[in-house]
């Protein structure tokens, strides 16, 4: 794949080093490519981690932020253990995905929707209700599509329910998920942590 020739631009890499979680680790990559060939989903990626780091260094903002690759990480840690430089490959990938989402860029819609519902559940209750979260997720597709999704997943849900691996719910919030006792404190902590995260200071 050949991209349009463009001059190296240092503004994007500085932005990544400063604002993206674990972004500074991009500096340490020595381009050996072990992460790329090691990734279980390498065939499904356009760039793969090594090329993403190079694009960042080259300043190719759009190519990076628009790449669906940055949200295809399964967190299997194979790259992390094999990277001879100990680069936090997974953390950077997650950081980049988070950074893109924050700016309204959605590298992978379904994972983004699911992840949002998942995090909301943590933030509101302290835990993830494995019945509530999929239900809410299926409805993110809108009432009609959501219904289809629900029907499609119905057999799986029914199976889980009948094998005592899912709680019974009529719908989202019926009955509502339990909250942990310290939920107020947890919320305060998460808010504080967000304020202290890279790129959020000040």
């Amino acid at each position, binding site marked *: 794949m050949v991209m349009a*020739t463009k001059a*190296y631009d240092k503004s994007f890499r500085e932005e990544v080093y400063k604002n993206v979680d674990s972004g500074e680790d991009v500096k*340490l990559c*020595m*381009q050996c*490519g072990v992460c790329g060939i090691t990734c279980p989903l390498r065939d499904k990626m356009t760039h793969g981690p*090594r090329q993403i780091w190079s694009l960042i*260094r080259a300043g190719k903002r759009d190519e990076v932020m628009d790449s669906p690759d940055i949200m295809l990480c399964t967190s299997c840690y194979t790259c992390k253990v094999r990277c001879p430089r100990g680069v936090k490959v997974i953390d950077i990938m997650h950081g980049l995905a988070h950074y893109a989402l924050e700016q309204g860029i959605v590298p992978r819609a379904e994972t983004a929707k699911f992840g949002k519902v998942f995090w909301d559940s943590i933030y509101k209750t302290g835990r993830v209700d494995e019945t509530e979260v999929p239900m809410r997720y299926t409805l993110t597709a809108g009432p009609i599509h959501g219904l289809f999704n629900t029907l499609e997943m119905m057999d799986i849900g029914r199976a889980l329910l009948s094998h005592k691996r899912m709680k019974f719910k009529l719908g989202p919030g019926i009955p509502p998920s339990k909250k942990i006792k310290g939920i107020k404190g947890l919320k305060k902590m998460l808010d504080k942590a967000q304020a202290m995260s890279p790129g959020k200071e000040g």
Partner: protein
Amino acid sequence: MDKNQACYLCQGCGLGEALNFEKLQEVVEEAGIGEVKTHEQLCSPEGVAFIQGDVDGGVNAILLGACSCRVKTNEFDFGPEVIVERASLREQAVYPSEAEYEGEEEAGEDRQMLAEDYLRMSAVKLAKSDVPVPFQLEEAPETSVMVVGGGVAGINAALAAAKAGVDVFLVEKEDALGGFLGKMAKLAPENPPYQELEDTHLEALVAEIEGNDKIKVYTGNTVTETKGAPGNFDVTLSGGESFRCGAIVQATGWLPYEPEKLAEELAYGSNDAIITNVDMEAKAKAGDLGGIGSVAFIQCAGSRDQNHLPYCSAVCCTVSLKQAMLVKEANPEAAVYVIYKDIRTPGQSEEVYREAQRKGVVFIRRGEDYPKISESGGKLAIETADVTLNDTVEIDELDLVVLATGMKPNNPRVVEPPLVALGMDQEAAKKVAAEAKAACDDWSVLNLKYRQGPNLPTLKYAYPDSHFICFPYETRRTGIYAAGTVRRPMRVTAAVEDATGAALKAIQATKAAAGGFAVHPRSGDMSFPEFAMQRCTQCKRCTEECPFGAINEDEKANPLPNPTRCRRCGVCMGACPERIISFKNYSVDMIGSMIKSIEVPEEDEEKPRVVVLVCENDALPAIDMAARAGHKWSPYIRFIPVRCLGSINLVWIADALSSGIDGVMLFGCRRGDDYQCHFIKGSELANVRMSKISETLDRLVLESDRVRVEEISFGEVDKVPQIIAEFMETIEEVGPNPYKGF
């Protein structure tokens, strides 16, 4: 000497069960050794005491039938006055043979014959061996060391030698000590955690030299003549002074590769902002980096390139990392790019690489092609392939482009040809390489008055060295050691290590010269070649072929040996057509007699015999290891270790074939560019000599297939049985030697 001989046969390690010791005893007695004793484990304290008792009682020549001569050397050392000859019954007879072999009338007879032959050969060798008497120089041996070159390697070599207690003469051509170290701004990180640039500490080093009364410094001087040999080198300087020293360290540094040659590829000379790493160092030393807003380093500028330096200088990457860090120190906001083929950071420099990355230096992998450098709007721009992005990228607005050029050997006669030669048409390349090599060899720092030329012979790319793995610092001129970048490109840390190593080697050489024993690799060997001059025909082969330049000539072409230059390889002995050169414990007659002592069965017994002359440095250890690893091979093989294949005299081949031996193999080390020979070219010489004997074989109506040269390296254990099997197959095809039974 009067020999009081005794033989000891070991029954340990399974030998007792594998062999008939009564018959072995008879064989030894027939060979003329009256006293034969067996023991269940000779290397045990009881076994050693058993022998020592006899030594105390007057035995001074011992035949040991036990394990390989390469093992248990401490146990079986009974002092310099006692000759120990070892038949390797374990590694050469029992381990590699089967308890029963095809076509045997009686099970185990071939193995038994094998062991018996080894004892016969060893008995002959013992009978023909004498205790060496160490050579003594006519004039008192010197212990002082001359160090030539006052850069980082020379300074450190001088200090190391002085600290070890010897007097040092330090010669430097410039008016001040320091060499390139004096031109450096900073050193790349050398100490954990390898994050801080370091000072050169040159002033402190010079002060230490000046404050050391063991070191006499001659600045503004070159060496006009070096005569003599280790222990007695006579040196004259350009300033007219002269002195005698025991050994020499040459630490005369390097030359930067000429950037003018990169005008085409890298636009050198077209713009003042395109500079070399040497220029960059000067800029840094002058404190002139603050104004740099963006800079690109181009690695392998004229290195690893068949049109320039074909090799990697191993320093330019670390130098660029250091200079990149210097730029970042002067201006943390500066955009710094390193455009590379491969980052090569030997040793702990990998940490320096990491640190430069942490500081935000951007690395771009370019592939083989050079980037294009152009001018644009008063600044420089680079267009380069970016291998990782599979794209061409640009870097604009550069204030500076630094070409990371490599190191050349410090010999003004070195021009491109020997370096270019590799990539060219081979025949043409050999020619220019030979011409250039001759030009290099004709120029010298030391101006040696040696028959073989004034310079240290070079190994590759015009660097003087003798062996790229086994003997660093060791040149092909005994007692002269190369340290630092004169030997190969290296960074300061490595040059300091080199300096210490070379200084210690030099001191060792003075001790060896005084004691009359050999240096590496036959360390401690007190034998040396003796010439029966009345039979010399002045053919010059010995003087020409000695790999170490040990033999000078008088005006009538008589050889003038310098035993303290000698490494005891025996190449001269192999070369001499008159067979007048021999050692007290190694001679043409000795090996010839050993060959003749082998019992050759009649043709109708269908038991061929093959003699293998084995290089003791590579092939012998490989054979030992193969045997210990359980490999088996034909019991018709008889190994005879030799000091070097170069020491093989052609008469041995004749001896073997005329006594009915069916085949002779020369089993040596690797030759060629990546040679493994401990004596530089022994294997090479043997190959050349053997190629010339097919004519002789034809005259004898013998097939030239009966003689073969094989090479093996130390670790190629699996190849041992394979090579032997192939040769045995050939011998079977050729059929029995017609001279059998004559």
